[in-house]
Every structure is written in C-alpha cells, then in structure tokens.
C-alpha cells in the first residue's frame, strides 16, 4: 500500500507574522519557513505505518514555489521514500488555495494510486482546514479528519477524531483521506546521516499546468490588516485587589 502525504511550506510556527505595510498580505521575505507542523505529524504517521509493515511506500507532495523542495527534503530525511514537487507559483507571497491544491493532489492520486492520503488538519498560515476534505470530495473517498489515533486493518482505517464534544471513533473504507491533529504522534527529528541520504532520494518536479489544473484564485484577497490591538492593563498586587477590580468591572 502506498501512502501519499501532502506537505506545505509555511512560516515557521515560532515566528510572529507581520502584515506588510501595503496591506497586501503577511511579509514572507527573509522569514524562517518550515514544514507545516501538522504535516510533520502526517509524515511521521505514514513512516510509522511503513515501519509496522502496513505500507510499502511513502510519497510526499508539495504544491507551491520551487523553494518547497526544501520542505520535501525534510520529509525525505524523516523517512519518506520519494517526493513530488508541483510548481504552481513563483512568488513566495502567492498562496495556492485548498481547492486548487486538492485538484492537483487528485491528479497525483490518479497517477500514483495510493490507498491512503494523510494530510495535515490545517495549514498554520491560511488556517483553512479544508484541503483534505476537498480532496476526499473530488475523489469520492471517505474522510477521517482531525485524527488523534489511526489504525489500518485490511480494507479499513479505524480513526479516533478530536471533535468539539470529546472524541469520536469511526471506520472508513480504503482508499481514504485522513487529516492529522496535533496529538496523533510526536514527529521524529531527522538524523544527520538521514539528511545526507535524503539528498539522493528521488524528487520529481512537475507544474500545475502539466497536471492540467488552473490555480487562479477563487477568493480575491482585497486586503490584509493587523487585528485590533490589545494593550497590557495593570498588575495587581494581591488577590483582594484583583477581586475588587473584577467586581468593579462587573464581570464577577
């Protein structure tokens, strides 16, 4: 069984995003970029399935600018077998929407025929939480989103999902899409020898046009602004003072 893992290159989660002065977006020039944290978890899960003998090959795919090759190398160093880079943009500030990414991934799935796609639950830049669900719709596959536990058994995947009320466990028929939540696993660090080895693993490059997908956005970004600021209030010296202030404010 092949597993496909889409990985996105995003602003590092430790970096505070700054809005560009012209209001066109968030400044991404000279900013540290990393693999989307949820995608590291997805890659880790796929590698573990392979280590357990439940999968034969782990293929990672990234859609975006050419620099996403670095993100794919990271996934290869973690243990993925090969990578596909779909170049769809030439400016780092151009984000490809989930619908277009899902169409590109569908084309890759049609070629590669994986039985399982493990995506991240959400990209921490656009906070869409949509691509996995959209890909499932385009393929007509079942979906198990926000997974905190995954077991593959024969023709089904059994998935525990993090939902508003607690946890839900479902079984989804393969082929299927799973999206990874934070508690699915703790991703490994790539060791130096594995980073060296990853340089020799296959990385195939395609374009969105090769796959026949139009990536022009459906949502035009009219503007991006800073959120309303919130300034620091006061420090109180004791619990008594705090309780008095809260009573004055009418909140207790």
């Amino acid at each position, binding site marked *: 069984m092949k597993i496909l893992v889409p990985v996105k290159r995003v602003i590092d989660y430790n970096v505070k*995003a700054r809005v560009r002065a012209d209001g066109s977006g968030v400044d991404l020039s000279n900013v540290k970029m990393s693999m989307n944290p949820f995608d590291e978890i997805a890659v880790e899960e796929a590698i573990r399935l392979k280590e357990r003998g439940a999968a034969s090959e782990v293929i990672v795919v990234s859609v975006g600018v050419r620099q996403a090759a670095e993100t794919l190398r990271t996934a290869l160093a973690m243990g993925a077998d090969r990578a596909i880079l779909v170049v769809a943009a030439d400016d780092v500030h151009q984000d490809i929407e989930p619908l277009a990414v899902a169409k590109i991934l569908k084309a890759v799935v049609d070629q590669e025929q994986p039985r399982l796609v493990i995506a991240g639950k959400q990209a921490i830049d656009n906070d869409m*939480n949509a691509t996995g*669900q959209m890909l499932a719709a385009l393929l007509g596959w079942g979906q198990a989103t*926000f997974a905190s536990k995954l077991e593959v058994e024969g023709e089904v995947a059994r998935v525990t999902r993090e*939902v*508003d009320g607690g946890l839900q466990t479902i079984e989804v028929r393969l082929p299927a899409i799973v999206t990874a939540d934070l508690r699915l696993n703790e991703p490994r660090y790539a060791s130096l020898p594995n980073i060296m080895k990853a340089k020799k693993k296959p990385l195939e490059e395609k374009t969105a046009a090769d796959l026949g997908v139009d990536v022009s956005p459906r949502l035009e970004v009219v503007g991006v602004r800073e959120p309303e600021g919130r300034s*620091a209030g006061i420090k109180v010296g004791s619990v008594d003072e*705090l309780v008095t202030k*809260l009573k004055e404010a009418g909140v207790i």
Partner: protein
Amino acid sequence: MAVLLLGEVTNGVLNRDATAKAVKAVAPLGEVTVLCAGASARDAAAEAASIAGVAKVLVAEDARYGHRLAEPTAALLASLAGEYEHIAAPATTDAKNVMPRVAAMLDVMVIPEVSKVIDAATFERPVYAGNAIQTVRSRDARKVLTIRTASFEAAGPGGSAPVAEATPAADPALSQWLGDEVAASDRPELTSARRVVSGGRALGSKEQFALIEALADKLGAAVGASRAAVDSGYAPNDWQVGQTGKVVAPELYVAVGISGAIQHLAGMKDSKVIVAINKDEEAPIFQIADYGLVGDLFQLVPEMTGKV
C-alpha cells in the same frame, strides 16, 4: 438571495447558541433556511424555528445522519444547494469536517471562520493564528462559509418559522460510526460560557488541575486549557483553547499558569476582560491581560476561590 444554514445538531439536540450566532451573521445575506439533520432532528428543528430571523426550517431525519459523518451530510447539503447563493454553518468541528467537502462538490472555494460579513461576496477572516485579518472577495457564484461564532452575538428568540421535510440524499456509505467518548459535565459549554477559567502546563498534574475546576465552579465558568495541559493529560482535548482548539470570547477569561503563546492567544484574545496569573512577570500573557497577578498559582488560585 437565500441562505441555507446547517444547524448544529448533536444526538438530536440543537446547539442553539452556535446556530443562533450563525443566523445573526448570515441574516444580512438574505432569507435564512436552517437545515437540521440527524437520526432524530425534529425537536432540534422546532427549536431552530424559534430563533428570530429564521424564515424556514428543513428537517432531514434519517439514521444516516445520526453520527455526523461527513459524507452523507455533505451529500445532503449539495443536493439541497439549488437556489441558495450562500451555504453556511457555525464553525464547529462537525461543520469544518463537512463544509469544505460540500464546497468541493460544488466546485467552489470554502470561506472558513468568517468573522465579519461585509457584503454578499466579501468577508473578513483571521489568518496566521489571528495575527492578520484578511478580507476576501469570492468570485464563485455560490459561497460556502463557516462562521466564527465568537465574533457574533446570538440571534434572539421569538421566531416561528415553518418546518418542512427535506428528502434525504443517497448515502455514499464510505464510513461508519464506532463510538463517542464524551465527558458529561454540568459546567457551561466552553464556546458559549460568559466566564472561562483556563489552566496551563504549570498545573503539573490532572489532580492539581482540579484547582482550576474549583475556581471555575465557584465563578460558574467553563474550564479551558492550553495545548500543553491537554498534551500532558491534565485536561481532555475538548478543553483546548487556541488556533487549533476552540475560540472563545467570554466576558471574563482567567489564564492560570499559561505563558501566552500566539497559538493560545488566537483562541481567547477577543475576550472582554482577561486576567493572567503567572509566576513569571515577563510572561507574554501579561501583554494582553487587563489584570495581571504575579505569583505562585498554587497559593493564589485557592485564595481566589475562597474570595469570589
């Protein structure tokens, strides 16, 4: 133009608060029809009909909608899409599971976590963990959106909309429900509570997390947690507040032993009054707190519980 709104129905019960907030958000877009789907959904439909501003309620009562699986519910919404220009839902985990699937079935983009409706095609939504607010204009003829409930007031009572049957759509039968693990609680629900007390990694254990629960109970508050507290097993996952947890905007938010990482702030910084209790006076949480108290939570929290 008309709006089809997916009501939030769990085990036959309408989440009135989330649904009413979504109604308020989409009301300016046109006449609102609320769809209630479930294995039992009639009571939920009757309740939805009483929300002010709801013009019509559709009920789809069928076993296939019983466990909020994405595929049958998305198929139902897509089959009903017909004349509606907007298809919306409160941004709960169920809707986040379903709505992007609906959008892709209709070949349109989903517009998630709308925090402001500007006009029929233009919406604001937070991105980058709330560090930026994006305004997008949809080029799609039909718009599929989820509503960030913390950004809207709830529509009031007093509605009396007619309830009609919706024909169930074919069930693709791709997944099957096995079980739910839900902790029953008498406390207010996190996303609709007027007060929230949250604990972080500093609590140190599940047993000691009870200090947070005691203060919350005294205040009639819901209990929240940082991801670190959830990951460490001190609190269940559905208490997590933040970018990837729940978004809350109560009148009072008390953050105890929480450092204030951007991912946590993303879920609570729109609260009206924020209190932070932390022993590190440099903790970033103090930069957004209205009232900060520096000290040891193990001393301060029991004292506060005794005094409110």
